[in-house]
C-alpha cells in the first residue's frame, strides 16, 4: 500500500516540489534501515506477485530495476486506464447531461402537450356542450313538430266533424226547404210558362219512361262501356302491332347493317390472304366475324307475333348482341378513321414546321446580313452610338474587375509572405525534430545503444516476459484462491479497466496544448520522465498531427494496435488501476500530460512522411478539380483547412496553380475586352 502511495505521490510532485519529494523519498529509507526496508519492500512486492528482489539477503539490483520498471509500466497502464475511465466518465457525464437536457425538453414537450390536450379537452367540452344544446334544440323542435302535426291532425278531425255536423244540418234544412217549396209549387202549379211546347230536337216524339226503357238505358250504358273498352283495346292492339312491326324492322335493319360490315370484312380478308399478310389479323377478324354471324342471326318473324312475355328474353338477347356487335364495329371504324386522320394531321404539321423553320432561318440570315453589313460598312458614329450604353457598362465592369484583381494580388502577396514564414518555421521545426529524434533514438534503443547497455546489464527480455506472464497467471490464481481484501474491487476495477481500455480505444483524449507548444524548443515539461529527466519530452504522433491540424487516421490505427500490444506486454494492469481508483484524484491535465508522454516510444517518422504524401496528393487533386473556382476562396480554404501545415512543395504548387489561374483569367479578360471592342 505504501508502495502505491509512493507511486502516486511520485506523480503529485510538481517541478517546484522536487526537493520535497527527494526528502520524502529519503525519509523512507536510510542507510541504516536499508536492509529492513528492503525486506519490507520485498514482502510488499511479493504480495503483488513480484519475484523477490533479494537474493541471499542481498539486494538484487537487476531484479529491483526490473520490478521497478514493471511497476512503473503497470502504473502507467493504470493511469491510462484511469484516464480512459475518466474520459468514459466524462463522456457518460456529458451524455447524462445531454439526456438530462433531453429529458427536460421532453418534459417541456409533455407539458406543452398536456396544455394542448387540456385546451383541446376544453374545446371538446365546448363543442360537446354545443352539440348537446343543439341536440336539445333539435329534440325540442322535433317535439314541437310532432305536437304541431298532432295538433293539426286533431284540428283536422275536429274540422271534419264540425263540417259533417254542419252539412248534416244543411241537408236537413234543404230537405225541409224543398218540402216547403214543393208545397208552394203545388199551389202555384208549374213555374214554367211556355207558349207552345217544342218538338224534340231530333224530331221524334217523346217516349214513355217505363221500366223497360230504364233497363234499356242501363243496357245501353253498359254496352257503351263495353264498346269503350273494346275501342281502347283495339287502340292498344294497334299500338302493339305497330310496335312489334317497328321492332322487327329495327332488327332487319340491324341485321342488314351487320351483314354489310361482314361482307366488307370478308372482302378485306380475302385481299389480305391474297397478299399473305399477317395471320393475327385474320384470326381476330375471323373471331369477330363469327360473333357477328351469331349476332346477325335474325329472330324469326313469327317470334314477334308471339306473346311477348314468352319471347321477351330471346328477343332482348339477340337485339343486345346485335347492338353490341354494331357498337364494336362502329368503334373500330371510328378508331381507324381517327388514326388515319391523325396521321394526316401530323404530316401536315411536320410539313408546316419545316416550312416555318425555313422561314425563320431566312429571317435570321437576313438579320445577320444586315447587322454584319452595317458593322462592316459603317464603323462610324451612329453604330458606335448604338453601343454606347453597353460600352459604358463594360468599362464599369472592367474597372470593377481590375480592382478585384488588385485586391487579389495584395492578398496573394500577404499569403505568400505568411506561407514563406510558415515554411521557414516548419523547416526549423523539422530540423529540430530530426535533431531531437536522433537524440531520442540514441536514448531509446537500450538494447543496441551503448548507453543503454550500461543500464540493462542482463538483456534477456524473453525471460522477463515469460516470468511476467507467469506471475500474471499466478496473480490471477491468487485472486481467486486467497480472496485478498482488495480482490473484489480489483476484479471489478480490472474488468472496468479492461472494458474501458478495449471499448474506448477510439475515444480521443483531450488535448489542451496548442500546436506551438509542442515545438521542441519549449519541450521540457515533465521533469519526472522516467526515461530521461533531462531530455525534452517527445510529442506523440497523434498529438503532433492534431497540433498541426492534420488528419490522424493511419497513425490512429497504429496507435490502436500499439496499445493492444502494449496491453499484452504489461500484464499487471489491474493492480495499478486499483491503486488509481483508490487515489483517484489525479487531475486531468496531468493525466493528459502523462499520456502524451507515454505515446512517445511508438512514434515513428514513417507515418508522418506517408501522411504528408497523402495530403499532398489530396491538395493536388483539389487544385486540379477546382481550377476555375474563385481564387480567394481557394486561398481561404487553404488557410482555414486542416492542411495548414502542408509541405512547402505543396504550397508552391498551389501558388503556381493560383498564379496560373489568375493568368488565365487575365487572358480571358483581355480577350473579353478585345471582343467587346
Amino acid at each position, binding site marked *: 500500500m505504501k508502495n502505491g502511495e509512493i507511486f502516486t505521490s511520485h506523480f503529485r510532485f510538481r517541478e517546484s516540489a522536487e526537493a520535497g519529494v527527494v526528502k520524502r523519498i529519503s525519509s523512507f529509507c536510510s542507510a541504516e534501515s536499508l536492509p529492513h526496508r528492503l525486506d519490507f519492500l520485498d514482502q510488499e512486492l511479493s504480495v503483488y506477485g513480484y519475484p523477490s528482489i533479494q537474493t541471499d539477503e542481498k539486494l538484487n539490483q537487476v531484479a529491483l530495476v526490473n520490478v521497478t520498471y514493471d511497476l512503473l509500466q503497470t502504473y502507467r497502464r493504470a493511469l491510462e486506464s484511469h484516464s480512459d475511465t475518466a474520459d468514459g466518465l466524462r463522456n457518460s457525464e456529458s451524455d447524462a447531461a445531454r439526456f438530462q437536457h433531453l429529458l427536460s425538453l421532453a418534459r417541456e414537450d409533455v407539458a406543452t402537450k398536456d396544455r394542448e390536450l387540456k385546451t383541446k379537452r376544453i374545446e371538446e367540452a365546448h363543442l360537446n356542450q354545443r352539440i348537446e344544446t343543439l341536440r336539445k334544440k333539435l329534440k325540442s323542435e322535433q317535439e314541437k313538430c310532432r305536437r304541431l302535426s298532432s295538433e293539426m291532425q286533431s284540428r283536422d278531425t275536429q274540422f271534419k266533424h264540425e263540417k259533417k255536423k254542419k252539412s248534416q244540418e244543411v241537408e236537413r234544412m234543404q230537405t225541409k226547404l224543398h218540402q216547403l*217549396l214543393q208545397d208552394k209549387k203545388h199551389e202555384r202549379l208549374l*213555374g*214554367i210558362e211556355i207558349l207552345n*211546347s217544342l218538338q224534340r230536337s231530333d224530331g221524334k216524339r217523346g217516349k214513355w219512361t217505363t221500366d223497360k226503357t230504364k233497363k234499356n*238505358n242501363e243496357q245501353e*250504358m253498359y254496352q*257503351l262501356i263495353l264498346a269503350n273498352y273494346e275501342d281502347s283495346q283495339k287502340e292498344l292492339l294497334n299500338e302493339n302491332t305497330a310496335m312489334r312491326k317497328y321492332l322487327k324492322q329495327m332488327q332487319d335493319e340491324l341485321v342488314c347493317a351487320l351483314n354489310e360490315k361482314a361482307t366488307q370484312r370478308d372482302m378485306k380478308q380475302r385481299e389480305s390472304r391474297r397478299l399473305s399478310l399477317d395471320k393475327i389479323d385474320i384470326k381476330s377478324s375471323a373471331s369477330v366475324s363469327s360473333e357477328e354471324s351469331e349476332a346477325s342471326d335474325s329472330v324469326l318473324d313469327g317470334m314477334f307475333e308471339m306473346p311477348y312475355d314468352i319471347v321477351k328474353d330471346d328477343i332482348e338477347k339477340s337485339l343486345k348482341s346485335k347492338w353490341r356487335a354494331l357498337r364494336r364495329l362502329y368503334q373500330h371504324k371510328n378508331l381507324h378513321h381517327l388514326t388515319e386522320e391523325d396521321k394526316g394531321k401530323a404530316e401536315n404539321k411536320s410539313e408546316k414546321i419545316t416550312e416555318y423553320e425555313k422561314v425563320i432561318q431566312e429571317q435570321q440570315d437576313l438579320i445577320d446580313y444586315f447587322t454584319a453589313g452595317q458593322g462592316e460598312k459603317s464603323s462610324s458614329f451612329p453604330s458606335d452610338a448604338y453601343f454606347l450604353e453597353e460600352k459604358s457598362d463594360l468599362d464599369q465592369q472592367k474597372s470593377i474587375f481590375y480592382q478585384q484583381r488588385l485586391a487579389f494580388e495584395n492578398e496573394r502577396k500577404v499569403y505568400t509572405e505568411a506561407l514563406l514564414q510558415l515554411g521557414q518555421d516548419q523547416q526549423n521545426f523539422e530540423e529540430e525534430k530530426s535533431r531531437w529524434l536522433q537524440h531520442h533514438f540514441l536514448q531509446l534503443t537500450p538494447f543496441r545503444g551503448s548507453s543503454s547497455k550500461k543500464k540493462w546489464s542482463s538483456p534477456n527480455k524473453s525471460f522477463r516476459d515469460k516470468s511476467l506472464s507467469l506471475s500474471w497467471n499466478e496473480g490471477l490464481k491468487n485472486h481467486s484462491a486467497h480472496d485478498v481484501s482488495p480482490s473484489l474491487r480489483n476484479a471489478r476495477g480490472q474488468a472496468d479497466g479492461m472494458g474501458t481500455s478495449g471499448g474506448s480505444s477510439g475515444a480521443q483524449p483531450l488535448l489542451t496544448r496548442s500546436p506551438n507548444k509542442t515545438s521542441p524548443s519549449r519541450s521540457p515539461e515533465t521533469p519526472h520522465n522516467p526515461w530521461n529527466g533531462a531530455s525534452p519530452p517527445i510529442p506523440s504522433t497523434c498529438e503532433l498531427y492534431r497540433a498541426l491540424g492534420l488528419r490522424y487516421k493511419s497513425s490512429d490505427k497504429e496507435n490502436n494496435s500499439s496499445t493492444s500490444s502494449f496491453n499484452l506486454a504489461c500484464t499487471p494492469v489491474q493492480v495499478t488501476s486499483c491503486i488509481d481508483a483508490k487515489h483517484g484524484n489525479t487531475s486531468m491535465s496531468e493525466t493528459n500530460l502523462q499520456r502524451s508522454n507515454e505515446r512517445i516510444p511508438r512514434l515513428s517518422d514513417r507515418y508522418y512522411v506517408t501522411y504528408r504524401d497523402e495530403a499532398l496528393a489530396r491538395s493536388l487533386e483539389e487544385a486540379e478539380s477546382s481550377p476555375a473556382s474563385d481564387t480567394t476562396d481557394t486561398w481561404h480554404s487553404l488557410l482555414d483547412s486542416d492542411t495548414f501545415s502542408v509541405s512547402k512543395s505543396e504550397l508552391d504548387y498551389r501558388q503556381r496553380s493560383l498564379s496560373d489561374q489568375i493568368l488565365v483569367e487575365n487572358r480571358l479578360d483581355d480577350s473579353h475586352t478585345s471582343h467587346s471592342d
Partner: protein
Amino acid sequence: MNFSELFKQSQFHCKFSPDGQYVVTCVSYKVIVRSVDTLQILRLYTCLDAVQNIEWSSDSAFLLCAMYKRGICQVWSVEHPDWTCKIDEGSAGLTHAQWSPDGRHVLTTASFNLRITVWSLVNKSISYIRYVKNSKDCLSFTDNGKYLALAESRKCRDCVSIFEVESWQLLKLFETDTEDLSGLKWSPDGRVICVWDHCLWYKLLIYTMDGRCLTTYKAYDWALGVKRVTWSPTSQFLAVGSYDQKVRILNHITWKSISEFSHISNIQSTNAVVYSESETKPSLPRTENTLIASPPIFSTQSKYEFLSPPIQIPSVQPDPEKPNPKIGVGWLEFSPDNKFLATIDDSMKTAVHIWSMLKLSLYVVLLQASPIKCARWDPHTSRLALCTGNDKLYLWSPSGSVSVQVPISATFHVHSLKWHPSAESLLLMSKDQMCICYLEKKERDKEIDN
C-alpha cells in the same frame, strides 16, 4: 285583319251561336241577335230584367237568358220571335241556369244548391235533382250529350250520379273516395270521369261510368292541392294545375304522371323562346303635325322582343293571411291539335307559358307588359289569342307572335275575347262595348275549304 264597328254590350254577355251564324249581345235587358256576316240586327228581345247570363242552345235555335236576381229565366227562339217561354224558380231562388246538351231542357240551380230543376221544353215536365254539391264544376255532360255526371253529397258522403240525359234517369250512383269533392269532368271521349278533391287535399280520381275507380293520384300532402283540371282534346292527357305552381300531366293508359311543368319565375332553360312585350310611349306630337298624325294620342306602341335567358318573370307573392291565395296554375288549356298546353300561373299573371306536348318541355313564354285578362285557343289550330285589358290583341302561333292594335278607338280596351267556331273571327269585348275582328283566311285554309 278587319274590325267591325263597336257595339254596346253589358257584362261581357256576347256570344257566337254554336253554328256560327249569329252573335248575341246583351245591353241591360235587351238581347240583340246579329248576323255574324253582316252584323245586321236579326232579332231583338226584351227581357224582364237585366240579363245576367245568356246561353245559346246547342242547335243555335234558342237563347236562354237568366235573371238571377228575379229568379227567372227566359227562353227565346231565333226562328220564332213570338215564341216565349219563362221559367220561374220561385222562392227557391236561382243561382245558375244552363241548357242541357239536347237544347230542349233547361237546368236551373236553386240557391244554396238546394236542387237542380230540369225543365223540359218539350212536355213541360219538371224533374228535380237533389243533393247537388255545386252546379258549376260538379255537373258535367259527355261531349255527345248523352250522359250527365253529377257530384252529390248524400249523408255527408260524396257521390257521383250518372244520368241518362234523354230520360233523366239515374243510371248509376257511386261513392267517391274524397274528403270534399269539388269538381268532376268527363273525358272528351266520354270513357272516364275525372274527379278531384277540395284544394285542401291533393287528390285526383279517375272513375269509369260504372263507378270503378281506375286510379287515385296524389302528388303531395297537406299543402293546397288541385286548382284546375283540363282534359286534352284527344283525352290522352289530363293536365292538373295545382297551387304548387306546377302542372302535372297524366297519361290515359297508366294514369301516371308523365311530366311536371314547373312555373318558375326565373327561366334558365335555353330551349324556350321568350317573347317579351315592350311598350313604347309615343312622343308628344309636334304642333304642326297634329292634324296629320294618324295614330291616336293615348295609345302606346308595343312590340314583341326576344329575350335570352336567364329571364325574371315578375311575380307577386300572395298574402298568406288571405284565403284563396293568388298562386298556382289557375288557367290551363290544350290547343285543339293537342300539341301545346297554355298555362297561366296566378302569381305571374303577365306570362303565358306554352308547353310543347311532343317534347314535354317549355316551348314559349309570352311575357306581357300587363296582366293577362283572357286567353283563348283558336278552335282549329294552335293559335292563341290573348288580351291584357289594353287596346291590343295579341296572337301567338308556333311561327311567331304579333300584337295588333284595335284601330277603332283608343279607349276600347279588350278585356275578354271569344273565337268564332270557324276561327275566322274574334269577338272582342271591352267593359261595355264589343267588336268583331275578322282574321284573314290563310291560303291553305281556303284550299281546305274549297
